[in-house]
Each structure stands twice: as structure tokens, then as C-alpha cells.
């Protein structure tokens, strides 16, 4: 540390001193290396140490736990939810989010507002997002989607529903009586929404067990595991962490049968059951913000919306469901003989679409299978479409059986 040490040694010039000083110089670099090592160890060890093991909770049966979820009546909470979705769709980057957010906000600017909740919340379908939720009774809720240096908030306060997109400074407004009272529920985002969906599917074909306990967002929780009994489903297991005190689902994980990372993983990283500040739900459109009323949007795109809805309704007439439980496959006749144009038959576009799928053959003839990690679809040469959360083999079997 003394300023003259090194210089003195150098001028001394004796071999021994020189070697000693070199050693001393090298020894100094131990400090930054140690700092780096300690940091690496801390980064590696702290999560392991913080994971204080699974909490001890009284035994509970699966039935009791499901009842606990149903009875759960959490009126006031605030927390942060991290949701990651990996459907195994091809990564199309910006194109994907453009397609997904689709609806009115894509394409032409006049058609809608970027603060329209239906457009915005569809973004949750892919990637990892951080959400904030706050609720105070049935009349006041807030859901915020945290973006880089921006935020999309959906605020339900009494009869008003506000959507605010801070990036574009646009506001969407609807009144709850106009049928838009729970727009947040259109896309299940919180672990509770997802769990409700999953519990709807529970029937004879499902095994429900309690698989120990876990700690989620610093709270003790039971782990409920829902598994399809039949083989052939792409769903491996659904695991739900249920708060031991309130019965509220804190974490929802859907793992595919094929293994690998979870398809959907949504969980609280921080949660509090205290009453959120009243100001959380106050919203006044900021100066200069473009406000879009819900009925305006409805009036603007009537032809397009209604027409496609009618078409869809007509098409859905032909919709049948084959099989039961987790292995059910939806099918309908697209009416398009020749099926999907394949590389040989359909020119460039056909080749492009065909390249995403695999060709399969069966008793039904031949067709193209499109795969994601959860949902698979088969379009036969006859124009029949089979869709389900089942494996390729199960789809082919369903198509064979339908013949």
C-alpha cells in the first residue's frame, strides 16, 4: 500500500528482493479474484440457502384442498405475478406479437386504440411477462402489465373500466354495464384464473393428488397435482400451489407430457393480502391522452366484426368433439376438399405452411400435422380438421375412428 515499496525494491535490484516483490504484486490480484469469487458464490448460494425446504403443514386430502380453493374468498390482495408461456410456436419475433395482438389495433390506426384490453392482453400468450394485480372487493380491481419503461394498466373501479397504455399515452374506456365488466377475465392471467380453468377439466379421467408442500412468494402452500389418467394427452401434469391459509392458488405450472420446460408457468413472486391503497384504483385520463370509448370501437368495425362472427358461428355448426376428458379432439369439416395445399399442390404459400407441419398417413388417408408443445392439429386431405391437446398418434387414431 505504501507508495514507494515497488520502487524501492526495483532500485535495490537484488534478485531475491525482485522475486519477493513480484510475488507481492501477484498477491494483490488475489483481492479482485476473491471479490469475484465471493460474488459468484453469493449468487449461487443465496437462492439455495433461502430455499429453507418445504414447510410442515397438516395433512390434507385432495378433495379437501379443492374445496378449500372453492371456498377461498380473497377480497383484498396486491401482488406481482410472473407468467411465462412457451407453447413451442415458431419464434416469429415482432410478427408474432403483431398477429397475436391482432384485432383492431394491428394494421390500420383508425380502427382502434392500443389501449384496448382485448388486443393488449393477448400478448401474454407468448414469452415471459410481469404482471401486477391488486383487488379490493368485487368492484375495484387493477391489472398492470409491466413493460420496459412503460406499463399497461387495466383498472376496474365501480362502473368504469379503464385501459391505459403509458407508452402511447392512450386510454380505453368502457362502462361495466356494457358487458365489458370483466375484461380481465378474457385471458386467464393470474394463477387463480388458470386454476379455475384446470379444475373445470377435473373428472373421472383425471387423477388429483396432494404432492407435499411448497413455499411460494414467502407463503406456505400445498401442492395440488392434476394429471390425466389416460395416455395420449400432451398434458403431462398441472401443479398448483395453494396458499395454506387463504386457499388461494399462488402458482400454476403446466408441464407437457413430452417433458422439458413448463408450457405455462404463472406464479406470484410477491403477494400481500392487505387492503391496497385507495389511490391505486383512481384513474383520470392524463392531459392530452387519446381516449377511446368502447362503444366507439364497436361502432367503427361493425361489418368486419359481425360478419366474421356470423361466419364463425356458421362454421362452428359443424364442430364435433370426439373422445372424452383430456383426450377429447375437436373436429370440423373445413369444406375445403384437397385439404391444406401442400408443397406439391399449393404453390409457394402452401409450401410455406406445409413446411411447419409433418405429413402423416393413416386409414383416413393422408394429412398434415401441425405441432406445438401443447396443442396439435391435423388437417386431412378431405378437409377435416382435428384439434386437441393430444399426441400426433392420438390425432391419427381419432381421424381413423371418425372414418
Amino acid at each position, binding site marked *: 500500500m505504501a*507508495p514507494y515499496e515497488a520502487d524501492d525494491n526495483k532500485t535495490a535490484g537484488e534478485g531475491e528482493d525482485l522475486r519477493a516483490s513480484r510475488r507481492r504484486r501477484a498477491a494483490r490480484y488475489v483481492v479482485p479474484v476473491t471479490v469475484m469469487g465471493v460474488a459468484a458464490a453469493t449468487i449461487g448460494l443465496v437462492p439455495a440457502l433461502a430455499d429453507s425446504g418445504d414447510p410442515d403443514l397438516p395433512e390434507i386430502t385432495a378433495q379437501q384442498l379443492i374445496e378449500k380453493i372453492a371456498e377461498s374468498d380473497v377480497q383484498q390482495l396486491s401482488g406481482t405475478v410472473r407468467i411465462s408461456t412457451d407453447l413451442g410456436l415458431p419464434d416469429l419475433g415482432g410478427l408474432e406479437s403483431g398477429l397475436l395482438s391482432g384485432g383492431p*389495433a394491428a394494421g390500420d390506426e383508425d380502427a382502434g386504440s392500443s389501449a384496448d384490453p382485448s388486443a393488449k392482453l393477448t400478448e401474454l400468450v407468448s414469452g415471459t411477462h410481469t404482471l401486477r394485480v391488486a383487488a379490493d372487493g368485487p368492484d375495484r380491481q387493477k391489472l*398492470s402489465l409491466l413493460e420496459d419503461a*412503460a406499463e399497461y394498466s387495466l383498472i376496474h373501479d365501480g362502473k368504469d373500466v379503464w385501459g391505459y397504455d403509458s*407508452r*402511447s399515452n392512450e386510454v380505453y374506456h368502457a362502462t361495466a354495464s356494457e358487458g365489458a365488466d370483466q375484461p380481465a377475465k378474457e385471458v386467464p392471467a393470474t394463477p387463480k384464473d388458470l386454476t379455475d380453468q384446470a379444475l373445470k377439466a377435473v373428472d373421472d379421467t383425471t387423477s388429483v393428488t396432494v404432492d407435499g408442500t411448497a413455499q411460494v412468494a414467502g407463503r406456505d402452500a400445498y401442492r395440488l397435482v392434476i394429471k390425466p389418467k389416460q395416455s395420449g394427452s400432451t398434458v403431462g401434469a398441472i401443479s398448483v400451489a395453494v396458499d395454506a391459509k387463504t386457499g388461494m392458488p399462488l402458482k400454476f405450472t403446466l408441464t407437457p407430457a413430452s417433458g422439458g420446460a413448463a408450457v405455462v408457468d404463472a406464479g406470484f413472486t410477491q403477494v400481500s393480502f392487505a387492503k391496497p391503497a385507495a389511490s391505486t384504483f383512481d384513474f383520470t385520463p392524463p392531459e392530452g391522452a387519446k381516449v377511446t370509448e368502447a362503444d366507439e370501437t364497436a361502432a367503427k368495425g361493425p361489418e368486419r366484426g359481425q360478419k366474421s362472427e356470423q361466419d364463425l358461428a356458421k362454421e362452428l355448426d359443424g364442430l364435433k368433439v370426439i373422445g372424452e376428458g383430456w383426450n377429447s379432439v375437436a373436429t370440423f369439416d373445413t369444406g375445403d376438399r384437397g385439404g391444406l395445399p401442400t408443397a406439391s399442390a399449393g404453390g409457394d404459400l402452401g409450401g410455406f405452411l406445409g413446411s411447419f407441419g409433418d405429413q402423416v398417413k393413416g386409414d383416413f388417408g393422408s394429412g398434415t400435422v401441425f405441432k406445438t408443445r401443447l396443442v396439435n392439429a391435423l388437417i386431412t386431405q378431405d378437409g377435416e380438421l382435428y384439434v386437441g391437446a393430444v399426441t400426433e398418434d392420438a390425432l391419427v387414431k381419432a381421424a381413423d375412428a371418425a372414418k
Partner: protein
Amino acid sequence: MSRAEPLEAVRTPSPLWTFGLLRSELLTTFRRWRTLALLGVLAAVPVLVGIAVRIETDDGGSLGGGGGGGGAGPAFISQISNNGLFLVFTALAATLPFFLPMAVGVVAGDAVAGEASAGTLRYLLVAPAGRTRLLLTKYATVIAFCLAATLVVAVSALAVGALLFPVGDLTTISGTRITYAEGLGRALLIALVVAASLVGVAALGLFVSTLTGSGIAAMATTVGLLITVQILDQIPQLDALQPYFFSHYWLSFADLMREPVYWDDLVRNLGLQALYAAVFGSAAWARFTAKDITA
């Protein structure tokens, strides 16, 4: 470069003497034309942004109000025309990725290597400060520059924003309202966080500066490293490494505009800067205290 010291201080350097050294360092740094030019460029950025937004929205329209156009430009730019305070946030978001760290890189890279290439380092070492103390003083000066540079941007943006645009209560990005006074408080907090975000680059620059005897080489290396890291931070295949890049959480300062504030990334950013400061600061110490000073 340091002033002639009274004789009695030679034997036992008093704490007061350290302040004397720091003061002389600060004066030499901030009196340089180069430093003043850097600060001038930084002060000009908010002026340019402010005038551009003003011209763009002069017809009464609001910027980025047209649906899909809202995604472009630096953060908060669409709110500037409604509240001048947002110019502070936009200006910091615009300068943080490049202008600010570049200026810090120049000052930090020059800190030791500049003295060495000007041949003044050995005179500095003749003063009884000790190499460790000299290095700490140099680092403190660079950090003071980080703070000064950030405040120059913030104050310039605040003034331009107040001149060109209306000011008043503002809406946080979470949609809640806060008063102008609270907004000012958050702006100050954001400026401090931005200044703290530069601590890592400052330590890195100082370390590079101890490696070479050429001031230009040290500055170029520091700025080059900065650009390299910024580019690597954009490559999706490297996402496992990116949380350890010093620039990765820089824009987390915007989380201070949420209600309630989202601390996770802010804490990660400050922790990462402290880690860089510790690793490269101690590496700089190891190098500098054992270095042969030939110039």
C-alpha cells in the same frame, strides 16, 4: 498537478489533506475544456429533444397519439407535450445508453493514463498521498463527474421542459396521479439512480486506465468495451450472460415512475454496479499500487 504542500503534512497525512487532494483533482478535472465540452454536449441533448417535440406537436396534436406510432422513440416521449417534467425522464433515457457512459468513459480512462502520458503521474506520487489514496481520489472524482453529468442532463431537461411545455400534476405510468412536487422528487431520485448506474463503467474505465500509459488508448478501450457490451446485450442467444452485463438493467430507472415502485430490477442494477465497482476497483488497486511508474 497537485499544489505544493505544507511541510508538516509530509510526515503524517491528515484527513484534511485528503480533501485537499480531492479538491485539487476535482478542480483540474472540471476546469478542463474537454470536460466542459462533454457537459455542454450532454446539456444540449434535452434542448434538441424538447425543440423537436415542440415543433412536432405545434399544431396541437400529441406525439405518438396515433395508435401504432406510440412504440417508437425513447421512453416517455409521448407524454412530454402534456407535461414538461417528462422531458427529464426522456432525456435521461436517451442519454443513458450511450452519451453519459461515453463521457464517463473518457474521464475515467484519462484519470491515471492521462497523467502518465502527460508525464505528471510521478510528480503526483511524490506527494505523500500514497498510491491507494491517490487512486481513491481519482475514483471519487470520476464518480463526482458521473453525478455532475447526470444532473446537467436533468437540470437542462427540467428547464427546457418548463419553458416549452406546460407543467403540473402528472400521471405515473401505472395510471395514478402524483403532484408536481412529488414528480420533482422522483426526478431527483431517478437522476441519482442514473448516476449510480454509471459507477460500474467508471470503475472499469479506471482499471483500463491503470493498464496503459496512453490516455487516448484507455479512453478508446473503455468506450469500445461499452459499445461491445451494449451490442452483446441485444443478442438473444446470450440471454444467460446478459444479467451480468453492467448495462443490462440501466433502463430500470423507469420503474421509479410506477406506482407502487417496482424495486426488483432497480435493486439488481445497484447491486450489479456495486459488484463492478468492487471487482474492477480492487483490480485497479492491485495494478496501480504494484506498477512501475516510468512516466
